[in-house]
């Protein structure tokens, strides 16, 4: 066990965890930030996506010690009032069904728009293909990303 300092959603947290523990479980089980989801544990589905220093990262694969001292943003911290343009576009486009994958989808899309404010369909394919959705909301995800970027509806 080790004491680590994690900077999550602008707040500093001192946690006592096994340093190899994936960030996902520290977020969920230690800090109670359950918006970040467990889907596969192998970086195959993207449900656990968070931002680390602005980059989309699969938190199920990132040991907590490697996250220490870096800026971690989860779905809870994406926007102060839950009104990030993507969140608004997700609501307007009625994207979620079961909703379980959507935290990861939104965080992945947020990283995309940071780098590429007006992504093409091909850009969206490339950025989002690591995020699975079993409800089949992909078409709406695509439209919501375009809408949030001010692109075609």
């Amino acid at each position: 066990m080790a004491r680590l300092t994690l900077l999550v959603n602008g707040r500093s947290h001192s946690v006592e965890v096994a340093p190899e523990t994936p960030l996902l479980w520290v977020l969920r089980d230690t800090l109670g930030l359950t918006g970040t989801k467990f889907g596969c544990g192998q970086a195959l589905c993207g449900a656990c996506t968070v931002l680390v220093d602005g980059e989309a990262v699969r938190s199920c694969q990132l040991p907590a010690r490697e996250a220490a001292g870096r800026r971690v943003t989860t779905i809870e911290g994406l926007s102060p009032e839950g009104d990030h343009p993507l969140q608004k576009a997700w609501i307007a486009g009625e994207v979620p069904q079961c909703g379980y994958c959507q935290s990861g989808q939104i965080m992945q899309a947020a990283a995309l728009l940071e780098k590429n404010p007006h992504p093409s369909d091909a850009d969206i394919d490339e950025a989002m293909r690591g995020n699975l959705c079993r409800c089949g909301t992909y078409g709406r995800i695509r439209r919501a990303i375009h809408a949030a970027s001010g692109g075609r509806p």
Partner: protein
Amino acid sequence: MTAPGKLSRREFLGVSAGGAAGLWLAVNLPPSAAEAAAPAGLSPDAWLRVEPSGVVTVFLAKSEMGQGTFTGMAVLVAEELEADWKSVRVVQADADAKRFGQMSTGGSRSVRGLFDPLRTAGAAAREMLVSAAAKRWKVDRATCRAEQGSVVHAPTGRRLGYGALATAAAREPVPRDPPLKDPSRWRLIGTRVPRLDGPDKVRGTARFGLDVRVPGLRFAAVARPPVVGGKVARFDAAKARAVAGVRHVVEVPSGVAVVADSTWAALQGREALAVTFEPGPNGALDSAALTKALAEAPPQKPARREGDVDAALAAAARRLEGTYELPLLAHATMEPMNATADVRRGRAELWLPTQAPTWAQADVAKALGLPLDRVKVHVTFLGGGFGRRAIPDFAVEAALVSRAVKAPVQVVWTREDDMRHDLYRPAARNELRAGLDAGGRLVAWHHRVRTPSISQQLFGTPQRWGDHPDVLESAIAFPYAAGAVQVEAAIPEVGVRVGWWRSVYASQNAFPEECFMDELAAAAGKDPLAFRLEHLPEGSRLRGALVLAAERAGWGKPLPAGRGRGLACHSSFGSHVAEVAEVSVVDGRVRVHRVVAAVDLGVALNPDSVEHQVEGAVVYGLSAALRGEITLAKGAVVQGNFDDYEPLRIDEVPEVEVHIVPSREAPGGIGEPGLPPIAPAVANAVFALTGKRIRRLPIGSLSGAA
């Protein structure tokens, strides 16, 4: 899931004499068709409450797994209540069979079953509120009307909010048969009411099963035998306990549980167990043995027989035969199975992402030896259901682990646990024979369905829901005019757990049916659409959907080079769906570019939700059709994660267009009916493009196709 769910239109309403202020109303429903034989009393299925504050609370006895029931059920109440939609709240009901009857969500039954009862509940409450207002004003109640959460006295313009009237209204007699609004006056039904659960689902605040946190919660992982009927042989508890954070290692009937302070510690502890298993009687089962069991099962007496198929075949100008095979499939919900249980001091409390709360409650009570009223089951949001969460195995296991360690425990299934301990969509072999006359008209149709019975495995009889085996669901309703028709089942017992998978047997039976129809069309030298229309009764709803889909897809119009088009149609769960798929093939891999669906589901409660469900069903069905397959080796499931059981990704899905046939018919289901046509539509499109027939799913690489 396959229960027809035909609920009687007779509802009975009663007002609760509870001490709380406000108006309570229970909708009493006859039990679902599955229980109709029992002489049970009438049991309520949903409640609404009008608070003195004016807030209308709808108690939801259905599980929200993505299908939009959370919003849809509230709309039904609010429509007739003339509630102000902004004052409507939905509260998920705990398991309570006394109040709600058997609570289960599946079979695309929610809207179908509750369309009349919930509207009637809202209407009764509205009438009582109007009566209370008329009394207060001492005016003729005929001069009062309800609108937007208030009762208005038309001649004077006086107005009283529902909150102010609620307590007085509760003393009014409950109307037995309150009038329902004419559909022309619907304000909410048929409109795109935004989902009430949307905001929480984009902010990470919706609580799924895995998000349950209670004081003192421990996390557990269970090592389970990989083979059905297997047993734990050896494990090293000391090694698991040596992992930091591990608290307990306990054996439960389903395996060995490692209980820890965090999920990660539990998983590490389970690794350290080095558990081994005795495979048991199914240790030699593999996919080849399963295929053999399907082929060798003795056929039963035909469940549908019209005319003499053998004679009609003998007399036919042209005879065709085809064998179609489908694999086992996992559900692979995005949220893996899990359950949170707190069993202490002779009580149990559980938090479950379940489609069957009262079944879970009953099974947990039985496993713990507790009376039902000592077992409380809360229902969370479900991170996907698709039928998997209708079976409460995960609940019972968590309760037993919690009891063993005397602490609240969340049992977390990893993706591999979930995929290897599913109840799989059964594998199937379908044998079809048909005959055409000299004019290319169908004169004989014989469909033999060879597949395990879910109902047999779960309830000991394949005829749980009627006079034919569950496996013939939808095959028995072959919709085309064919002269002689024979449909029968051959049901093997297999050492693999089977369960309800989105659209259940319709997912299996539509594929052979609609592919073989395509083969017959080709044999008759006819266009696949024209051939179907020739055999579908004029005015049938399936025919209407087929015509609409074909028209919107531009059936018959030229396609770009390298593209092919195919269609299929199927009725299931009270709805009628046709789909046209447009495909290409690159390096032997099929790509689906566009799917045009037309659906006649009667009244579309929420058109956006209908479109969303069909879009989702198409993608779910396509993942299966193109590459979904669970295989067995040495009795165990081979696949484990999304690398070897990989659903379609965003860059692989088609544009899906959904067209709704305008209708005032009673609503059909919509969670499932969009799925059955997609596999045959794609297979038929592949034939149109390549001339190759797909007779086995998944389609995979075309090099192996016939």
